[in-house]
């Protein structure tokens, strides 16, 4: 492990913390003796999370036939391990509020992350054989290392971005970061995810979303996040032309069994449609994404 990265992640440790509700639910999900009632109690202890959870549970995001009106019912219908993902997804932007930066507005940062999460979820559903909601969370979290870099070493981060522009995109962002800093945002994000003891699947997707050959345990999920990251760039700049953004590693299509030309446009279109409602659900009404 790179000691510079370790030091940097330790440095933000006090500022960026996982939400208590996620930590509690996480412990309960891991505990074989816990019951759905225990988890419902943990949810209810955080009224603001309870409200967000019920909102998501009753949205088109899940399209359950009946109204989900209590935490206990949500835990039963959605499933306890999904609740854990939601506790992380609906709180992650709050976790980073104390880590401001001058390079990218928080709104634009989370906009890209949310597009990636939505695209990853869609792709996961098409590809099958994976946990759709967990892949959404992985997409949402894939770039958290950037926020650490932007806050801790803004001058180097700025140089890396300028290098990308100067090269007329011959260099990718992780390549430019490597050149300026000797490491990239994916490594920093991975260290933060390890530090937080996030599930291994999330750790791998955060670490390897730029390199699909490296994920040893979750290559399928990681390949989905890799593709989703590129499609979310296309959604962000409103284009269906793959030449306008970074290229998807062909191996990622192979791993997932999806065909680029068959899914690309549909995934971008649906992510754009879902975005507005999802923004409200995950970042709160008129809240997080306004900054």
């Amino acid at each position: 492990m790179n000691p510079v990265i370790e030091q940097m992640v330790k440095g933000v440790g006090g500022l960026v913390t996982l939400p208590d509700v996620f930590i509690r639910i996480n412990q309960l999900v891991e505990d074989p003796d816990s019951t759905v009632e225990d988890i419902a109690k943990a949810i209810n202890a955080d009224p603001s999370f309870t409200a967000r959870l019920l909102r998501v549970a009753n949205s088109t995001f899940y399209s359950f036939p009946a109204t989900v009106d209590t935490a206990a019912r949500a835990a039963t219908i959605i499933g306890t391990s999904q609740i854990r993902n939601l506790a992380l997804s609906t709180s992650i932007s709050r976790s980073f509020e104390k880590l401001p930066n001058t390079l990218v507005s928080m709104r634009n940062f989370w906009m890209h992350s949310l597009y990636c999460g939505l695209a990853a979820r869609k792709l996961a559903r098409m590809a099958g054989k994976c946990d759709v909601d967990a892949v959404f969370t992985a997409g949402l979290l894939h770039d958290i290392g950037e926020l650490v870099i932007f806050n801790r070493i803004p001058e180097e981060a700025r140089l890396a971005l300028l290098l990308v522009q100067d090269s007329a995109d011959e260099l990718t962002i992780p390549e430019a970061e490597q050149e300026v800093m000797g490491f990239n945002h994916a490594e920093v994000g991975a260290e933060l995810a390890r530090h937080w003891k996030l599930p291994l699947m999330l750790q791998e997707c955060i670490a390897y979303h730029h390199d699909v050959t490296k994920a040893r345990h979750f290559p399928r999920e990681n390949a989905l996040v890799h593709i989703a990251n590129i499609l979310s760039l296309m959604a962000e700049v409103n284009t269906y032309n793959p030449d306008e953004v970074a290229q998807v590693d062909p191996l990622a299509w192979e791993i997932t069994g999806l065909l680029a030309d068959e899914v690309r446009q549909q995934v971008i279109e649906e992510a754009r449609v879902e975005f507005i409602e999802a923004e409200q659900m995950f970042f709160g009404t008129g809240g997080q994404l306004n900054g």
Partner: protein
Amino acid sequence: MADDMGTRLSPALPGFENIKRAWHGTFETVAARLLPGQYFVTMRDEAIYTTLGSCISACIRDRMSGIGGMNHFMLPLSKEEISLKAGDISASARYGNYAMEHLINVILKNGGKRQNLEAKIFGGGRIITNMTDVGRRNIDFARDYLKTEGIEIASQDVGDIFPRMVVYFPKTGKVKVKRLRSLHNNTIAEQEIEYLSTIETKPVSGDIELF
């Protein structure tokens, strides 16, 4: 970009020695990199590229001979002037006139014919949401200037909320425009603000050579 190619670059036209040029692998040609306030003209088969936020670039060439170039400019802010016309003699319009005239004059001086000129314009994005739409003024100015000069706008990609990377190949007139993700907004805006501060403190000299 391979720096070692720099030694083998054919020389630029006089006056453009300070523009950064290097071999570019993807374009498979030498490429000149423009910063805000700069312009570049070439007779060779090479590329010119720049990144634009609210600034605007005009790409102008002689469609018969292939000599052409690109500028990158913006009009300084002024409270009294809402819109600017090419004929205006106000200080801020003069920056636009200066950028456009220099580009056109160097093309003509090196053999371009006025009647063969075609233009393409790019940029003028509204990349910072809480700023007044300075991009719009730059677009309006460029269009009005070209109309006044009788130069046809062959294509354009302007406005909207995106920064752009524009690559121009004057020999063929081909352009690649790529919208950039918002991650680049602040660094591009920073460069433009820095450029703006230099033109606001340094007035344009009045001696523009007219053809």
